[in-house]
Structures are given as C-alpha cells and as structure tokens.
C-alpha cells in the first residue's frame, strides 16, 4: 500500500514570497490533515478535511495560509506571503474514518 506522498521535500524561500505544498493521501482515506511542526515542538493541526469539506481550520492563519482539497483526494497548502516564523516542517496525514492517521515525510520549509 502506497503511503502519503508529499512534495517538495525541501523548500527555501525569502520572506514575503509565496509557496505551495502538495499532498496525495492514501487511496480511499476520506480524512486529510495538514500539520505544522516547528523545531523542538510537536506537530500542530492547521486544517482537517473530510472528503473535500473543511472540518477544522481553527488554527490556520487565514490571512496568509490557504488550503484546498479538490475532488476529495489531493490537497495543496499555500502560504502567501511567507514570514520567518513559518519556517517549519509541514506534515500531511490521512486516515479512514475513526482510524489512526498515517503521515507523509513532510516538507521542510526555510524562510530567509
């Protein structure tokens, strides 16, 4: 079974630039999550989708972050414009209903 795929693996951008991350969940997983993990901290949920609907985006900084999940499969997370404090690993995860989440390898973003 293929795991959660994320790209790119690494990205370096200057502050105020834009960046986008892509996630392809495990086939058949209706629930998709984006987490942000800042160095030295645990992952923090940014947004949760159930199929293509948003379940929870209470911790998403909506003035600069946006996410979509077209057709209930792939998802993209965008930051526009980026700030220095956005430097983190962005993790995508997916799950079946009422099952544990499987994580991708993450995208390490460095904002300089």
């Amino acid at each position: 079974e293929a795991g959660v795929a994320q790209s790119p693996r690494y990205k370096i951008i200057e502050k105020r630039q834009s960046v986008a991350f892509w996630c392809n969940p495990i086939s058949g997983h209706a629930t998709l999550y984006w987490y942000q993990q800042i160095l030295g901290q645990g992952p923090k949920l940014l947004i949760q989708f159930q199929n293509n609907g948003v379940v929870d985006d209470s911790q998403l900084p909506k003035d600069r972050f946006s996410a979509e999940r077209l057709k209930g499969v792939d998802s993209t997370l965008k930051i526009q414009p980026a700030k220095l404090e956005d430097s983190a690993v962005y993790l995508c995860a997916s799950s079946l209903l009422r099952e544990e989440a499987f994580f991708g390898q993450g995208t390490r973003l460095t904002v300089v």
Partner: protein
Amino acid sequence: DQQVKQNSPSLSVQEGRISILNCDYTNSMFDYFLWYKKYPAEGPTFLISISSIKDKNEDGRFTVFLNKSAKHLSLHIVPSQPGDSAVYFCAASFERNEKLTFGTGTRLTIIP
C-alpha cells in the same frame, strides 16, 4: 497552553532493558490517546493507542498505560532494541479520528 506535556526531552536506556516514556495532559475531555514514533527526515509513524475506557493496551513489546485520575499515560518498551532509537510523541484527541494534540516529544536512545 500546552495541553499535552512530555517533560523529558531525552532518555537513554541500555539495550534489553525497559524504556518508560511519560506523558501528562491537562484537558479531561481527551478521550483517545496515541503514541507516534519519528525517525529523522521521516513523518511520525503510529505505534499504539488507548481509549479512555481502558487503562492498559499491549502490542508486542509495546504497552501503554493510562491513569485518568492522574491525567497521565506512559509507554513501556520491553525489551528495548537499537531500532527503537527515535523521537516519541504522545498525542491526544477528543474522539478517535479527530484532530490530535501532540506533546513536544522525547528522544529515546538505546545504548548497545
């Protein structure tokens, strides 16, 4: 407000001995608890979970204990093996398949 806490940033254990990782939480509404293991440059991998209706769950060398009155859970690994060296995250949710609140992680090193 750190609702899930792992107060030991690191732990070293001799190979073959027992590793005990601890986690405390503050929100009594948490109903489901999980442990994830993370190797460098990889996403977290689900290890074991426990529902609040239980006080113990075992899976091979891994056992999770839950003490609801103390709002404390622990992960026991017996016997510890070199491949167990990783960062371990404790996580909690209000329901299974709901967003996870993670601790800051404990880096476990198994000494051969």
